[in-house]
């Protein structure tokens, strides 16, 4: 059982770090400067001398210097710059003749570059896509100056909105131009025939007519315009063309082209389409609810990694078999095939620096790497049959060799309850104090309860008294009477000796304005002086906030501060409606002087 908790990975880590790890560390170079994807890695006996080399279509740091690297052992044997970023690399046998050295195909932009003996041999370019006849017609008219740029623009615009296929770049560019630039653009480009070119997004190989290990293979290309092409290995003509509902990202093929084959294509819309030999369109469709990050076929099961950090197994008819949750995001996947033991498993490089190996849903092994692995490949390298090659996010290269005695066993540490089950619960121990208090409560519970109840009643009584007093003397800044619902709020500004006292008075009733209010300040006249200790309040419109400002001069030179009481009164009544106590700050101007 594959538990997906992160805590159990530690147990696995301990296992693989032990001396009885299944892998020998052959090589680790953190500065190898290889930045690539699993699709751009290939292992092949390029020279027919029995020494397998590693072919890397390297994107270069930041995707700036694409080049083709061929590694022999830990060293780069050959490095040649590429014209554009490589999308995929594959090795395949082109013909039956001896010596049977495989050719190397590198897909990049709209072309496939084929190398033999590491020398450029052939360049295949994708055929141009047919332009929209209407669009073609418009440009032909422009060429003969029968149409002015403005009409051209309108016509192209209408084509773009209705036509199924997109316009050529030339037209799209044109549509973006300002009026003044159009003329020049048309003159410059009108003689060009309009082109639509697509690019290769993915590539794989398919055996032509024999299932042998060293049989002639066709190249299968996935293109940006949602098509799959099968190329003839010798003549590089297009043998078959299939269309998909979306752009293919990963391909997985089984069978032989001339007999029967199945093609699974993971696409950008998150679906996987399965095609067969005689179908021009997908036969089955697997809808994932997330984007696929890898597609591997193990025997008859399609294993898909998704961006939801999980591996799914599907049959060739698209039926879901199982799901395994990963502890981190999957970065890359590839097939592990150990011929000597007839083992096929899936390797998944995770963002937390693990490489997990699964046979179906059973975890076989976990490899911990110093950096997250971004591309993986397993096979014969040099003269060693079972070699695992990994490149990391930082451009490092790790080569590990599977021990000849190593046998992958299912489960291992994964059987049994999760390790968390063995952890003790964190329950605090009973303390002396607790025991004492418990005993005391048992002995004197009734007395405690009574004392508590008495105190509670007293507290309530006091609170009620204080509240009543506040209501009676209108000490609160909120008036409780229904006729004058008022709110008062005072702010003191300044450092002294002169302060500004602002009263914010608000009429909280919904409809009725309040008239005839007075404000009165009560203060110690020895300490403060106010220009107007008593004034009338204007009419208060409901809801508005009235700031009433007044200056306060501090008279004391000893830094004494006092309370100023603010009373809001109704004309003709001696009891205040509201009152506020303003704690005046000490005068700091005095201290400075």
């Amino acid at each position, binding site marked *: *059982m594959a538990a997906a908790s992160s805590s159990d990975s530690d147990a696995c880590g301990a296992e693989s770090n032990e001396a009885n790890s299944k892998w020998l560390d052959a090589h680790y170079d953190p500065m190898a400067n290889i930045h690539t994807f699993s699709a751009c890695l290939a292992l092949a006996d390029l020279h027919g001398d029995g020494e397998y080399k590693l072919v890397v279509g390297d994107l270069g740091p930041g995707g700036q210097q694409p080049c083709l690297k061929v590694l022999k052992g830990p060293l780069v044997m050959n490095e040649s710059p590429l014209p554009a970023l490589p999308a995929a690399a594959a090795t395949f046998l082109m013909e039956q003749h001896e010596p049977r050295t495989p050719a190397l195909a590198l897909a990049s932009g709209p072309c496939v570059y084929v190398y033999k003996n590491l020398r450029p041999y052939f360049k295949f370019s994708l055929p141009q896509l047919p332009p929209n006849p209407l669009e073609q017609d418009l440009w032909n008219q422009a060429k003969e100056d029968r149409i002015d740029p403005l009409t051209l623009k309108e016509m192209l615009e209408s084509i773009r909105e209705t036509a199924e296929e997109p316009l050529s770049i030339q037209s799209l560019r044109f549509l973006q131009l300002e009026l003044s630039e159009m003329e020049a653009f048309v003159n410059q480009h009108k003689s060009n025939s309009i082109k639509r070119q697509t690019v290769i997004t993915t590539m794989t190989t398919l055996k032509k007519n024999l299932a042998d290990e060293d049989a002639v293979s066709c190249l299968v290309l996935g293109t940006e315009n949602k098509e799959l092409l099968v190329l003839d290995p010798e003549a590089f003509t297009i043998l078959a063309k299939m269309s998909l509902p979306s752009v293919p990202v990963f391909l997985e093929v089984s069978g032989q082209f001339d007999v029967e084959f199945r093609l699974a294509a993971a696409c950008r819309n998150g679906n996987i389409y399965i095609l067969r030999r005689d179908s021009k369109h997908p036969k089955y469709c697997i809808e994932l609810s997330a984007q*696929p990050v890898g597609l591997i076929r193990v025997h008859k099961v399609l294993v898909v990694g998704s961006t939801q950090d999980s591996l799914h197994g599907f049959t060739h008819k698209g039926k879901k078999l199982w*799901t395994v949750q990963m502890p981190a995001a999957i970065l890359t996947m590839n097939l592990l095939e150990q011929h000597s033991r007839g083992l096929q498993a899936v390797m998944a490089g995770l963002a937390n620096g693990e490489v997990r190996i699964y046979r179906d849903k059973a975890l076989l092994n976990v490899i911990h790497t110093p950096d997250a692995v971004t591309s993986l490949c397993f096979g014969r390298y040099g003269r060693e049959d079972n070699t695992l090659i990994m490149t990391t996010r930082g451009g490092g290269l790790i080569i590990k060799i599977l021990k000849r005695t190593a046998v992958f066993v299912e489960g291992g540490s994964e059987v049994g309850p999760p390790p*968390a*089950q063995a952890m003790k619960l964190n329950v605090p121990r009973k303390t002396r104090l607790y025991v004492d208090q418990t005993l005391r409560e*048992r002995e004197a519970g009734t007395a405690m309860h009574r004392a508590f109840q008495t105190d509670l009643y007293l507290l309530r009584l006091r609170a009620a008294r204080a509240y009543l007093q506040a209501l009676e003397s209108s000490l609160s800044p909120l008036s409780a009477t229904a006729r004058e619902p008022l709110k008062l709020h005072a702010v003191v500004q300044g450092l002294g000796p002169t302060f500004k006292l602002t009263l914010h008075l608000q009429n909280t009733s919904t409809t009725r304005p309040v008239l005839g209010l007075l404000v009165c300040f009560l203060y110690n006249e020895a300490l403060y002086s106010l220009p107007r200790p008593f004034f009338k309040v204007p009419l208060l419109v409901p809801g508005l906030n009235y700031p009433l400002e007044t200056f306060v001069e501090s008279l004391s030179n000893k830094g004494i501060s006092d309370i100023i009481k603010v009373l809001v009164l109704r004309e003709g009544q001696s009891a205040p409606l509201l009152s506020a106590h303003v704690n005046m700050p000490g005068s700091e101007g005095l201290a400075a002087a």
Partner: protein
Amino acid sequence: MAEERVATRTQFPVSTESQKPRQKKAPEFPILEKQNWLIHLHYIRKDYEACKAVIKEQLQETQGLCEYAIYVQALIFRLEGNIQESLELFQTCAVLSPQSADNLKQVARSLFLLGKHKAAIEVYNEAAKLNQKDWEISHNLGVCYIYLKQFNKAQDQLHNALNLNRHDLTYIMLGKIHLLEGDLDKAIEVYKKAVEFSPENTELLTTLGLLYLQLGIYQKAFEHLGNALTYDPTNYKAILAAGSMMQTHGDFDVALTKYRVVACAVSENPPLWNNIGMCFFGKKKYVAAISCLKRANYLAPFDWKILYNLGLVHLTMQQYASAFHFLSAAINFQPKMGELYMLLAVALTNLEDIENAKRAYAEAVHLDKCNPLVNLNYAVLLYNQGEKKNALAQYQEMEKKVSLLKDNSSLEFDSEMVEMAQKLGAALQVGEALVWTKPVKDPKSKHQTTSTSKPASFQQPLGSNQALGQAMSSAAAYRTLPSGAGGTSQFTKPPSLPLEPEPAVESSPTETSEQIREK
């Protein structure tokens, strides 16, 4: 500048002469989609920084015409939480290729995330015109309608989505509608179908198990929760629910080991600590029970169930003053539960506040409809106070409830309670034989029913502290949950009360818990 770099890279025959305005051959344009594959690969690997760099380069090169680059940029913005910006970019995409349903879908999705459900529905409908067989559109339309509370339309759309292609998510949403409408049976139907379709989805299994638990179908509930735990032994929702069922069976040790897993995963879950506390309570480790319950109470101070349990444990510990506080707090949050008042009355009785105890009992009797224990305890108090007449009335009330319960279910009564009732019956000189128990299934808990002939020497006053305290603790083990207590909230969180009634079905608890232990 960009042109030049491209030129050297793609080996197009462009020389520096191309900069001259009047010239025979115009410069070629770079292919718009040249690096779409690279953008996509970076995107699915969640390497958003690299992705943005490539997008920027490609947009510069194509002067903003590359639709896919804008599309992915918008997706990244959305993931980063800049929904408004992503919406604008998706709208740009929709302008660049007006025939694409995908762009419209994303526009709608962003609108949805911004909470503009009506606008989202409009855009989804537009998209549906372009692509009619897309489960995603139907599903999302359904979700929008849920938020607009138009459940009928939502159901139609979700069923549509299921017809096009079945997805777990659609089932979950459909189930949610039924739950929102309070239709448990239909929800169970939906989840059943969902589990059939994807039998390994632990979320579906757990939800189905919890729904069965809510309906009281314990066998099935346990089955589904067990299945969920087989696939994911760390699924804490399932563990909590299954654990509470084990507690019901008295399997406190097994439940505790299961809870350890949860305690590791979500150590601050109040129901978890509540259940652990009650496990310790069941094992008679009262101090540990109190510290766990207090932790639960600290984490969820407004949960009356935890307060109830705290009150119960403190009663057992004879800390009546503390029990009083916890119980009165619980009553403040849940004033409609008879048992709470009864416990409060017990606490008050022990605190020698008989007047208030009687009032609490009166309230308890008033609120409670089916628990004979309330009346029994009240009768004991009245008897001890010498009010034989009232005691007799309560005693008869209790008998009514007992016979009602016996007719309706195969519940077994706690032996402690039966004994107490018989003592009281004798003391009150109610002569007739009470047929307390049904034919008992479990020989272990079999007790004598022929004890109407009590020893005559039985004269000392009933209801010492101890007797009541014991009656209380067993009360908890017996108590039935009022069905409305959890309500719909019980669906989202695992039942926090560990103490469920005995399952009606004759399940053998040892076997089922064995199943779990194996995992």
